[in-house]
């Protein structure tokens, strides 16, 4: 869906090169697509003062349950409804330096004022979303999150499925 591909997990960049420093901003699918599309992040009025900004964590999609993520990276002021079903992947580069978020157990943050638009074109390197199918769920990832050579190898050994869905969406 929307250019995301599934399977080929071994070709994902964090499985090929675990030294790659990436951060994951969990949100819902629509917000993830909008952030990835614009290369920008809008700081909402959800939190004010010392809590507002861009919040990320080190947990790759699917590595923690929703309950675990909720306790590790959310601050308890808002529920997790739909918030953990997609993520935008950031590379730490330039001025975007994440520091520990004191209001969460393992969350990191970049402080910014409510209403601010952060231009993060050189930091956003992908997005992923959880797909539920008949009671089972799995994560699908943007092509940008794969190692090109490993993905090509993986597609030879497992040619289907795993290609981006094309064409049928208005969006």
């Amino acid at each position, binding site marked *: 869906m929307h250019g995301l591909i599934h399977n080929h997990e071994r070709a994902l960049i964090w499985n090929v090169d675990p030294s790659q420093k990436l951060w994951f901003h969990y949100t819902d699918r629509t917000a993830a*697509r909008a952030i*990835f*599309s614009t290369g920008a992040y809008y700081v*909402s009025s959800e939190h004010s003062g010392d809590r507002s900004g861009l919040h990320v964590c080190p947990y790759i999609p699917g590595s923690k349950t929703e309950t675990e993520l909720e306790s590790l990276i959310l601050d308890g002021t808002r529920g997790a409804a739909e918030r953990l079903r997609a993520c935008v992947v950031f*590379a730490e580069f330039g001025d975007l330096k994440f520091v520990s978020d004191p209001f969460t157990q393992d969350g990191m943050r970049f402080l910014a004022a409510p209403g601010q638009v952060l231009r993060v074109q*050189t930091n956003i*390197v992908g997005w992923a979303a959880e797909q539920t199918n008949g009671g089972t769920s799995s994560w699908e990832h943007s*092509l940008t999150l794969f190692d090109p050579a490993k993905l090509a190898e993986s597609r030879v050994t497992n040619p289907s499925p795993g290609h981006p869905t094309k064409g049928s969406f208005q*969006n």
Partner: protein
Amino acid sequence: MDHPGTSIDLSGPRLRADLNGYVVNDQFIDGFKDDPALPATARRKVAEWAQAFATEGFSEEQRQLLAVPAPADDVGLEVLRGAVQNIDVDLPEAAESGLYDLLADEQRKLMREPWRKVKFQGRRRDYPLSAGELAQLVDVSVTQVRDWEKHGLLPAHRINGRRQFFSAAVIHAFAFAVQPRQRIAAIRELSEEKPDARFEALVRYALRN
């Protein structure tokens, strides 16, 4: 239905996670060399990445591309603001009110995947939805959706000059769709800026009993 909601554009070059190149049209491109075949906005993006990541630096053409300010993507930013407000503010409010937990399984699926039901000219649609698309998803009339929105009962976001809707609006719309007209009128009155104090007191009294 006159217009679909605004589409989120995921085409164009995207930076690779290994920072060694980009992806465009489902193809991996190594490095950040200028490609005159790409549209101007795409070439500008590649130039920006070349400036940041290319070990050999960036070309004179790319320098010139970056000398011109980036074109404003006002509609894209309106979608972004709406989507982030939806997940950070509108959806938590729908959850706190209890409406999120009251969704039936099929309604929750439709809220998560509106394309299962909403189509425009035969193509599947995703958020943001127009009033007509929200009506199609929830099985009510467009007039009904516009009326709820007009009275502030649905979270809506102005995008490209029109009010458009995200998942929190779907949760509210499913709840309103099964309420009798008189109850909605009462909710509307309570949601107005200066509700009659006696009416509010009567509602509180009725709920207590």
